[in-house]
């Protein structure tokens, strides 16, 4: 008994150390994101601004361009990483990723539809995207459950890929109807952090706070659900309610992230994958590790997308796909599909 507690304490200490290391990395990434860019405000001038001095141009670049971008990257990464971990836990499927299952595509389609019907306000866009994400989520999970494909991780991903392809082509079809909407949406639909302002961030904060509260409430029952439906209901939880709540949270998070940065795939796959490798299968610990890992990945990808083809920009989804697709292949290639 004593030995168990001691080893438990040791492993807890190790996990805390890892988490602290990740936080440090994240802080460094944020600083790098402030200092590096396509323009001619280099690290030295940026450091001067951070120290409280610096010229007006550098101050403007840092304060109005790079800072919002970094903050939005932080929030988007947080949302997508946590959403991926939750979706994977609730479907017990290591491949369940909001971008792959058509949740992001649902949000994008809803936003395109709303723009076509004449909506412009930022808040409306967030709500619409969340609604679309909800519909996409319910669609793929409901259909998979109904047809029994939910038990087969790979078939679920295929269904999601089919749904994503369908929704993306419907979105392009909508954009053909209306040149104004197409111009307004073109920079958003490819998925990027460029040119986002702080108002966008403010618009999504309330729903993110709500989602955070729900995550705290649902984490413990979700860990019980990992032991199986019967065990969970034996422990006094209600599996149906937990699932519904998780889907609501995922829709809130993915909708908010998509409304801000456009549809970005593979973050929700790579981040929980890395978090599980670092923290083990318990969802309560995995979620803690997703908190720094998601922003770390998004901000790093954003820095790369700025620098690789400077002075022009690259869609964020390009970098995430280049990192994420190998992870997808690795998970699929594993001899025994790891089940959650």
């Amino acid at each position, binding site marked *: 008994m004593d030995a168990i507690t001691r080893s438990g304490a040791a492993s807890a200490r190790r996990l805390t150390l890892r988490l602290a290391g990740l936080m440090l990395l994240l802080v460094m990434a944020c600083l790098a994101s402030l200092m590096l860019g396509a323009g001619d405000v280099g690290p030295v001038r940026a450091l001067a601004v951070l120290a409280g001095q610096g010229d007006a141009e550098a101050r403007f670049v840092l304060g109005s361009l790079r800072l919002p971008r970094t903050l939005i990257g932080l929030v988007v990464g947080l949302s997508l990483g946590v959403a991926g971990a939750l979706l994977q836990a609730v479907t017990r499927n290591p491949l369940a990723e909001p971008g792959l299952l058509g949740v992001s595509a649902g949000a994008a389609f809803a936003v395109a539809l709303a723009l076509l019907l004449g909506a412009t306000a930022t808040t409306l866009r967030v709500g619409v995207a969340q609604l679309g994400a909800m519909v996409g989520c319910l669609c793929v999970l409901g259909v998979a459950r109904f047809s029994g494909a939910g038990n*087969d991780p790979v078939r679920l991903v295929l269904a999601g890929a089919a*749904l994503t392809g369908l929704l993306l*082509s419907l979105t*392009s079809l909508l954009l053909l109807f209306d040149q104004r909407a197409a111009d307004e949406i073109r920079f958003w639909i490819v998925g990027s952090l460029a040119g986002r302002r702080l108002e966008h961030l403010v618009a999504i904060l309330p729903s993110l706070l709500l989602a955070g509260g729900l995550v705290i409430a649902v984490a413990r029952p979700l860990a019980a659900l990992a032991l199986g439906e019967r065990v969970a209901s034996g422990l006094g939880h209600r599996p149906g309610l937990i699932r519904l709540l998780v889907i609501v949270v995922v829709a809130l998070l993915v909708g908010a992230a998509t409304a801000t940065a456009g549809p970005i795939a593979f973050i929700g796959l790579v981040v929980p994958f890395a978090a599980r490798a670092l923290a083990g299968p318990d969802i309560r610990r995995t979620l803690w590790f997703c908190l720094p890992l998601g922003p770390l990945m998004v901000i790093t990808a954003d820095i790369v997308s700025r620098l690789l083809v400077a002075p022009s920009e690259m869609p964020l989804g*390009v*970098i995430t796909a280049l990192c994420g697709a*190998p992870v997808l*292949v690795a998970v*699929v290639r594993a001899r025994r599909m790891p089940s959650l």
Partner: protein
Amino acid sequence: MWREVSAESQARQRPGTERCERGAGDIVAPPGHWRLAWQAAGGSLPYSLLIDRRAFVAALILLLALLTASLAYLAMGSSPLPPQAVPAALVGRGDMMAVFLVQELRLPRLAAACLTGAAFGVAGCLMQTLARNRLATPGIIGIDNGATAFAVASVIGLGVSLAPPAMALAGATTAAALTFGLAAGGGVRGYRFIVAGIGVGAVFGAITQLLLAKVHIDTANAAYPWTVGSLNARPAGAVMLLAVGLSLGLGAALWLTRALSLMRFSDAVASGLGLRVARRRWQVLAVSVLLTGLAVAVAGPVGLIGLIGPEIARSLSSPRGVPVVASALAGALVMVLADLAGRILLSPIEIPVGIVTAVVGGPWLLWILLRPASRNLA
């Protein structure tokens, strides 16, 4: 191989010990087939050809439908012609305007649509048979995306007219090698292979985006319709090359038909029946990759044709054989109809054919994937 055996002789002879008779008269076709036999001049053995009746009828129906659709394709558009004026315009008679519309504008595009559709259809049919899975079409396992990425690279970087087809072929080969190499642990069976292909396709899609991000916005805008699949900007050299490639590929596929229908069994059974499974598999893969690469060089990734075409062909023709010809015809038919719809639905604007097929084929794909019944090809 099939002989009519009278009841009397059947009673006399034990199975497997029949005398081998070579007469042309006493051979009848097995049920559901026509047998064409002819005596070669001077040769001692008669040649004969067995034609599956239902497959023949299916091909005939598809051919008629394709001809009708082509007529509609030539007649309809932003300035419609009466259908009876189309044949006259085809041979150069009638109104000058109609002749110009049909011969210069619509006929080349129709030819490109037929060729690409047929190539995608055959490639899909071959790949499905190879993987024994109806979802394993070149578009889904990432070969289309590989070809697109390489072709975009050549459009941006080189600008030589013959380069895109060659680069598209190289891309298709690379993507196929990657997908099959990555899936080698689990074999080509099952859904894991396909998800590995989706991953490969995602990487190549990202590379395409990356390449487009590097160039000037006008070049990128010009390349955009092509990356979703469109017949609008088709390089003439690529079409010619596709015509040559399709005739070669279709011939090879017909030559492989027998092997293909054996490959639907498990490897052990197929090699027990005398098939060199590994060698035939390479050949089938090579033909499929060739057709996909050349077709992508013309029309971009319109991969869902490779799913829909063979599906239609299979539901029309008999389950005995692998419907190569019917797949080609059905692919061409779907492509022509989809491009026609894309041209006339939102008339001043043209919908890229890739979007039309995705909107039509997406639900179909979902249905195949999610319906509870047996999902296997064989």
